[in-house]
C-alpha cells in the first residue's frame, strides 16, 4: 500500500501557469477579432475562462479521486463504447467548415468527441496493458487486441476529418505499446502498413496536399497555400528576443489563421519573443519531466501506463502544435494544450491532469 503524500507541486504550478498564460494569450489574440465578429472583445476569453474554471474544478476533484477507481472494466469498456458512439454520432451533426468535429447540445454547449478520444484511449491501453507486459510478443493476443479499439477510434477521427488528433492518438498508442515492451518489429510492420495510408491521406486529399506543398516551400505561393504558414513564420520572426509586447502583435489581425486556437503559439512568439516562447516550451518540458517521473516512480503498472499516456498525449500534442507553428511539421489542426482557446480541449486536458496529479500523490 502506497503511502499518501501531497500532489506534485511542480506539476500543479506548471498547469496553473499554463492555464493563466493561455487565458491572457487567448484574450490578446482574439480581442480584436471577437470585437469585430461578436461585438465584445471578451467573447472568447470569457468562454475560455469559464471552461478553464470548470476544468480546474474537475482537476481538483479528480486529484482527490483515487485513480484505481478507473482501473475497472465497468468504467473502461463503456467509456470506449460511448466515445465510439460519439465519434460516429458526430457525423449526424450538421457540418461546420465541411468537418464533423463538433457535438452541439443546445446553443451554448458543444464539444469535440475527438478530444475525449485521447484520454479514453490512454485509459483503455493502461487498463489493457497492465497485465500483459510479459506477453508482448503475442501479436494476436496482445498487440492486435490492444491496438484494435484505438485504431478504430483513430480511423473515425481521421474520417471527421481531424488528422492532427488522429496522429496524436496514433503516437500515444505507439508510445504506450513501446513502453509496454512491444518488440521493434511490430513498429516496423506498423509503420510499413501506415505509410501508404498516411501518404494517401496527405497527398490525395486536395487541401492537405496543398498544405503539404506549402510546408515544403511556404514562400512559393505566399498569397495562396503558403499563406498560413508564412504568416505564422512572420509572426514568430518579428517577435525577436523580447517580442512586440503583450497585446501588441499585428499578425493576429487577420493575417494569422486561427490566432487564438491552433496558431496561438505564433502569437505568443510575436508578442513575448524568444523569452516567452522558450518559457512556454520550458513549462511543457517541466510538465513532461514531472509526468514521466510520476510514471517512472509508480509501482502500479496501471498508474504507470496511465501517467505515461496522459503525459505523452499532452507533450506530443504540445510539441506537434509548436512544430506546426514553426513550420517544422506540416499544418495540422490541433490545439496547444492549456493555451489554445477551445472548451473541450482545456477541460479534458485539465481533467486528465487531475488524474496525473492523483497518481503523483503516491510517487513522492
Amino acid at each position, binding site marked *: 500500500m502506497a503511502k499518501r503524500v501531497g500532489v506534485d507541486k511542480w506539476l500543479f504550478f506548471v498547469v496553473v501557469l499554463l492555464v493563466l498564460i493561455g487565458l491572457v494569450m487567448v484574450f490578446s489574440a482574439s480581442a480584436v477579432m471577437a470585437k469585430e465578429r461578436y461585438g465584445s472583445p471578451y467573447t472568447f476569453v470569457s468562454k475560455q475562462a469559464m471552461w478553464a474554471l470548470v476544468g480546474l474544478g474537475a482537476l481538483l476533484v479528480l486529484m482527490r479521486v483515487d485513480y484505481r477507481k478507473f482501473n475497472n472494466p465497468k468504467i473502461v469498456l463503456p467509456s470506449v463504447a460511448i466515445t465510439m458512439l460519439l465519434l460516429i454520432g458526430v457525423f449526424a451533426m450538421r457540418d461546420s467548415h465541411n468537418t464533423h468535429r463538433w457535438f452541439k447540445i443546445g446553443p451554448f454547449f458543444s464539444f469535440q468527441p475527438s478530444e475525449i478520444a485521447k484520454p479514453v484511449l490512454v485509459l483503455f491501453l493502461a487498463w489493457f496493458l497492465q*497485465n500483459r507486459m*510479459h506477453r508482448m510478443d503475442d501479436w494476436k493476443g496482445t498487440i492486435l487486441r490492444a491496438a484494435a479499439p484505438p485504431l478504430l477510434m483513430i480511423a473515425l477521427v481521421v474520417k471527421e476529418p481531424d488528422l492532427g488528433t488522429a496522429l496524436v492518438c496514433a503516437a500515444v498508442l505507439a508510445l504506450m505499446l513501446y513502453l509496454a515492451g512491444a518488440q521493434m518489429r511490430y513498429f516496423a510492420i506498423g509503420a510499413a502498413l501506415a505509410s501508404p495510408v498516411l501518404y494517401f491521406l496527405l497527398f490525395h486529399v486536395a487541401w492537405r496536399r496543398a498544405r503539404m506543398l506549402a510546408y515544403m516551400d511556404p514562400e512559393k505561393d505566399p498569397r495562396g497555400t503558403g499563406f498560413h504558414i508564412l504568416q505564422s513564420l512572420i509572426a514568430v520572426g518579428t517577435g525577436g528576443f523580447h517580442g512586440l509586447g503583450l497585446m501588441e502583435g499585428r499578425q493576429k489581425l487577420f493575417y494569422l489563421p486561427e490566432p487564438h486556437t491552433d496558431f496561438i503559439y505564433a502569437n505568443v*512568439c510575436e508578442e513575448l519573443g*524568444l523569452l516567452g516562447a*522558450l518559457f512556454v516550451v520550458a513549462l511543457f518540458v517541466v510538465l513532461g519531466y514531472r509526468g514521466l517521473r510520476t510514471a517512472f516512480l509508480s509501482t502500479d*503498472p496501471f498508474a504507470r501506463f496511465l501517467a505515461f499516456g496522459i503525459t505523452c498525449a499532452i507533450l506530443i500534442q504540445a510539441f506537434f502544435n509548436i512544430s506546426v507553428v514553426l513550420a517544422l511539421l506540416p499544418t495540422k489542426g490541433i490545439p496547444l494544450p492549456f493555451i489554445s482557446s477551445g472548451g473541450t480541449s482545456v477541460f479534458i486536458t485539465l481533467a486528465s491532469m487531475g488524474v496525473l496529479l492523483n497518481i503523483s500523490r503516491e510517487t513522492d
Partner: protein
Amino acid sequence: MHTVAPPRQTLTAPIKRVRFVYVAAFFLFWTVVISGRLVWLQIIRHSHYVEKAASQQERSVTVAPRRGLLYDRNLRELAMTVSVDSIYAVPKELGSNAADAASLLAHVVHDDPDDRFTSEQSILARFTASHNFAWVAHRVTPEIAERVKDLNLKGVYFQKEFKRFYPNNDLASQVLGYVGAEDVGLGGLEREFEEDMHGTPGKVRTALDARRKVLGSIEQEPLPGENLVLSIDTNIQHIAERALDEQVEKTKALHGVVVVQDPRSGQILALAVSPRFNPNETRHLDPKALSNLAVSDVYEPGSTFKLVTYASALDGANVKPEDLVDCQGGAITIFGRTIHDDISDRGMGVVTVQRALEKSSDVAAVKLAMKLGNERFYKYMRDFGFGDRTGIELPSETRGLLRPVRKWDPASIGSLAIGQEVGVTPIQLVTMVSTIANGGMYLPPHIILSETEKMKGDPELKATPFRPQNELPKNLPDGSHRVISELTAAKMRSMMQSIVVNGTGTLAALNGYSSGGKTGTAQKIDTATHTYSKTKHVASFAGIAPVSTPAIAVAVVIDTPTAGPSYYGGSVSAPVFAEVAQQVLEYLGVPHDQPFNPKKRVDEMKVAKVEHDDHPEDSTADLNAMFAEANALPDDDPLKGTANAGPARPEPEPAASQPAKRSVLNLLPERVLAAFRANGGANTMADAADNKPLTAPKVVPLSQRKEDGGVIVDATKRVAVPSFNGAALRQVVQQASSVGLRVQPVGSGLAREQVPSAGTMVPVGTQVVVRFLR
C-alpha cells in the same frame, strides 16, 4: 481494497526502464529542435521577417510637400501652391456600372478636347485595367470637382494634389520661371531655388490588417519648402512690363528688357522681359520666351557704355566736365583704326567734355579713355562690374564679354571707349548706372530679399515696401566696393541730366522730375558673318531719376526694332524709360523736383523733332522752347514769394503769380543769375535768365496717388545752391542748412568744388557734394 490488483511478479519484471529514457530522450530531442528553430526564426532571421511583416502590414505613402511661395516685396503672392482635387475611382466598387460611370465622368471632366487623358475611352480603359485604383482626372477645377461630387457615384473618390499657381499669369514670368511635372522648377527662381523651395516629402506609414483595413498611421509631416521674398514690386514690375510691351509691339522689336533697380541697395524692383509666357499654361510654352534676357543676353552696349568711359576719366584722369576737348570734326584714328562719329557730330570742334557727352561724341570718348590708359580703364570697367557675373539669384547668368588687357589689340581701347568689343547684360548695365546714382558705390544686384519658412500673415514676416533712401545704408552688402568718388558720381549725374536736357536723351525727360541717362544704339553683330549688321540694332537707354537723389536706376534694352521712326536708343528706348520712371516715381510718391505740369502727359512732351545721335543739331532751338515751357516755375514756387501749399491743397493763382515770380528772381544777386547762365541752365532758370516772357503754367492740384506711406512733398519748393567756394566745413553746413540743403562733404580743408554748382535751382533737401581741399 485492491480487488483488481495484479500478481506481484508481473508488475515490474518485463518493464524495460531504458524505454523511459528513450522516450524522455525523444522529447528532449524534440525540445532542442524546437528551441533551435525558435532561435533561428526569432534571432537570426528576425530582420528578414520584420521586413516581410512591414511590407504586408504597412503601406508607406509619400506626401508631397507644399512648394514654397514666391512673394514680392510687399508680400503679394507671385507664385503659390494651391491644393486642388484629383479624381480617382476604385473600379471594383463601380461594379458593372463602370461603363456608365466612365461616360458620366468623361462628360464632366473632359473639358479640353485635346486632353486625351480624360476622354471616355481612356477612363474606361483605366477602369478595366485595374481593380483597385484608376485615375479619372488630375487637378481639376473646383467647379468640375463639385459637379463630379454631385454625380454621387459610388467608388469615385477625391484626392488633394498640389498645383502651382501664378496669380498674375505672365507677370515677371522669366524671373519666376515655372514648374513642371513632379513639382520640379524648370526655369527662373523656381529652378534656381528648386532645392530650397521644393520641401521635404512627408511619409504616412499606415498599419493595415490582413483585410487592408487601416488600423492607424504614423505620420511624418511633409516639410513645406522655403518661401522667397523677392525685391520685385509687383506694381513697378507691371508698369515696366506695360511700357516695354507697348514699345516692343510698336517697334516690332525682337524682344526687350527693362530693369528697374534701387540704386542704394542694388535690389531689383522690376525686371521686365518682353515677350513673356504664362507659367500657368505650361502645355503651350514657347521655349524662346523662357530665357531671362536680362541676365542671359549679352549685347554690345554702344554709346550707353560711354558713361563708363566718362566716369572713369573724370575719376581717374582728373578730367572735368567743363574741360575742353577737340572732337576733331568727328573722326579719330588710333593705331590705324579710324573711328567716326555719327553724321550729327560731324564738324563738332572744340567743346566741353559735358557737351561732348551730351552729343555722344565718339572722338571725345576715345580721347578720354586714352587719357586713362589701358590698365586703368580696364580696372574701372571691372570695378563697374563688367566682364563678371553680378551674382544675382537667377539662373543662366552670363559674365558678358570683356577681354583682359593682354588680349586687346592696340585699337581696343578706342572700341571699348565707345562700347564696342564689349558685351554686357542689362543687369550689368543697370548696376553700373546705379553706381553712378548712389555716389560711386558698386552694389551687387539682388532679386531675393529673404528666404523664409514664414508665411504671409506671420507677424514676423513683414512687407518691405520700397522707399527711396537718400543715402547709402551704413552696412554695405557683401561685394560692394567703391568705383568712383562721390564727387565724380555727382558730376556724372549732372552730365547725365544734361544729356536729357540738351543732348540725345530728350525723350527721357519726365514731367515734374529731373532725369538723366545715356542713350545707346549698337549694331548687332551678325553671328553668321561676324560683322556689324547694318540693319539690326540694339537700342538702349540707361538712366536715373530724379537726378539729385536718384530713387531708381533704369536700363532699357530693345533688341532689333524694325518698325517706327528709327532704331535709335534715343527714340526707341528713352521713351520707355520716361514712361517707366514717370509712373514709378509717382507710384513711389517721390516728391517732385521739377515743376509738374498736370495737363501734360509725358508722351505729349515727345515732340516730333527729337535729337538723335546722328540728327542734325539744329533741333535744339525747338527743344529749348519746349523745356522753357516744361520747366516754367509753378505759381506756388517759394521763389515767387507765395506761401507753400501742401500737396493736398495747392492754390492755383495763375494771374497773380507771374509778377511775383519775377520780383523774386530779380532779388537774386546778379552773381547767382550769372552762374545760372554760365552753368548752361541745368534746367529751370533758362527762361528766367533769358528774360523771355513767361507763359504761366496752369497749376491744378497734384493728382498723385499716395501709396504705401510715400510722402508727397510739394516738389516746387526750390532754392538756389549757394556757392561754398573757400568756406570751411562748418560754414558750408550752416549755409546749406539755412536754405534747406544737405551737405555731403568729401575730403578736408576748404571747399573747392561742389555739385550741383552754385546757383542751380534745386528742391529743398537736395544733397550737395562739396569737396574740401587744403
